[in-house]
């Protein structure tokens, strides 16, 4: 399936960033992205190429929602049984490897700081606001496409998006 391979290669990195913003950690983000790829390949490989993009958005958002539900239940059980909820993941040693495409150190540091702050602020948003922001601003989906991907009305998308932008601007305008 070379066409599907090309499509997935084109979206996997962006999907990972979206999933990492939503889950707050790389391991869960990888699981979410892998599940989404698997479902697209298993269920929709025979659809037209122009359908893969919107389908993948919908599947990815659905997987993120599933992750949220499981995490909520898991944390509740852990707390109930005297645990502390989700532990922070250990740092992946491969993450320390330098990326050959990175810009000069000061720019890299500034970019990294901006992204760290943006990710932290996005992570604090309610899930639906976060979804609406990422899909509208970064993926460039219009209101109707975003509503389909999120499984909600266009009015809801506008509300979530507007609130997300307002909150993020308050927190980050001077930092980005």
């Amino acid at each position, binding site marked *: 399936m070379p066409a*599907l391979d090309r499509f997935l290669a084109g979206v996997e990195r962006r999907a990972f960033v979206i999933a990492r913003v939503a889950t707050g950690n790389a391991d869960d983000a990888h699981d979410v992205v892998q599940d989404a*790829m*698997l479902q697209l390949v298993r269920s929709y490989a025979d659809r037209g190429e122009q359908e893969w993009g919107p389908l993948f958005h919908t599947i990815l958002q659905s997987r993120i929602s599933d992750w949220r539900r499981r995490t909520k239940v898991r944390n509740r059980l852990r707390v109930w049984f005297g645990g502390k909820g989700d532990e922070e993941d250990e740092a992946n040693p491969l993450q*320390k490897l330098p*990326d050959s495409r990175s810009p000069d150190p000061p720019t*890299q540091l500034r970019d990294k700081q901006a992204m760290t702050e943006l*990710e932290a602020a996005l992570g604090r948003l309610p899930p639906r606001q976060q979804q609406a922001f*990422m899909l509208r*601003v970064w993926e460039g989906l219009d209101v109707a496409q975003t509503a389909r991907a999120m499984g909600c009305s266009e009015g809801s998308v506008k509300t979530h998006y507007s609130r997300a932008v307002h909150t993020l601007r308050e927190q980050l305008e001077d930092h980005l």
Partner: protein
Amino acid sequence: METEDKFLDAAKRALDTAEKNLDAGTVARLRAARRQALEAGAQRSLRPAWLFPVGALAAAAAVVTIATLLWFSAPTNNISLQANVDDLGLLTAPENPDFFADLEFYDWLDKNADAG
């Protein structure tokens, strides 16, 4: 609105940079996940959707075979049917039934009367 647009552009740039700057380990893991997904899809597509499960086919064939054998092995009783028809003729004839019982004797008598 202009300041909002500037903010959104800056946010988009930060996300674009995050995507470009993913570390080598993450990129390798994503590549592996993609390969696994495509392999799983390829294995699924080797089995055509129209192919019925073998067990169901075998069961259907057995039912048809048994039904056919039962249909063609049902015994036909032509002899008893003919006998019944003959009896009916005898029972409805106007003559005394004893006449028919002695019919062989009268036949013999007829032949020997001509000889004698």
